[in-house]
């Protein structure tokens, strides 16, 4: 089974997202949480990297953290929002969880 990678740092602050995407094999998933949800923004310097990644990797963002930052309207197409129950389900449905801190 594939790995769930969680990223909690903004791509404008740290390179965690870039590293996670670099290590994420085809069919695995990336979940953006905390400041990591800034990686879900469209029209940002990180957007093309994430769009490329979405060709082979499913990208999710934690809805609570997206809402807390007021960026719901700016989330790029193709990124699925999940709540904490969804986070738990993703963790259960993947073979392991790798946290990129």
């Amino acid at each position: 089974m594939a790995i769930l990678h969680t990223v909690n740092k903004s791509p404008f602050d740290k390179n965690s997202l870039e590293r996670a995407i670099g290590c994420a094999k085809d069919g695995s998933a990336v979940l953006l949480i905390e400041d990591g949800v800034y990686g879900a923004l469209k029209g940002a310097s990180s957007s093309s990297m994430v769009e490329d990644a979405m060709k082979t990797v499913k990208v999710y963002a934690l809805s609570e953290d997206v809402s807390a930052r007021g960026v719901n309207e700016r989330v790029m197409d193709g990124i699925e929002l999940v709540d904490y129950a969804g986070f738990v389900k993703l963790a259960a449905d993947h073979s392991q969880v790798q946290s990129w801190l």
Partner: protein
Amino acid sequence: MKFAIQINEGPYTHEASDSAYMFTKAVIEGGHEVTRVFFYHDGVNNGTRLTTPPQDDRHVVNRWAELAKENDLDLVLCVAAAQRRGIADADESKRNGKDADNIQEGFRISGLGQLIEAGIQADRLVVFGD
């Protein structure tokens, strides 16, 4: 499914302790089991009962203790990390010749073996931190 949680960040720092709390709650509500919550590095600061946030702010320490009491959770502080940061229970305080202890009820201090054991016994280990 069995989940173990690791927290490497103190309360009121960024968001890790809050995220871990929300995730732990969701794990329980989802009908899963939380085998252990292990507080490592600055995460041990989540376990001092001297924490006194403003009244209109969430009380991160009490919130963990209450969740643990309601669901019989095992909240473990890493002993080496706790010693470095001045977090002690009565035994640790006495052993190190200190005049007080400050651990919050519901937490316990133990070694890194508890994290390894949690990783082995749980189906998933999820890490929150800085």
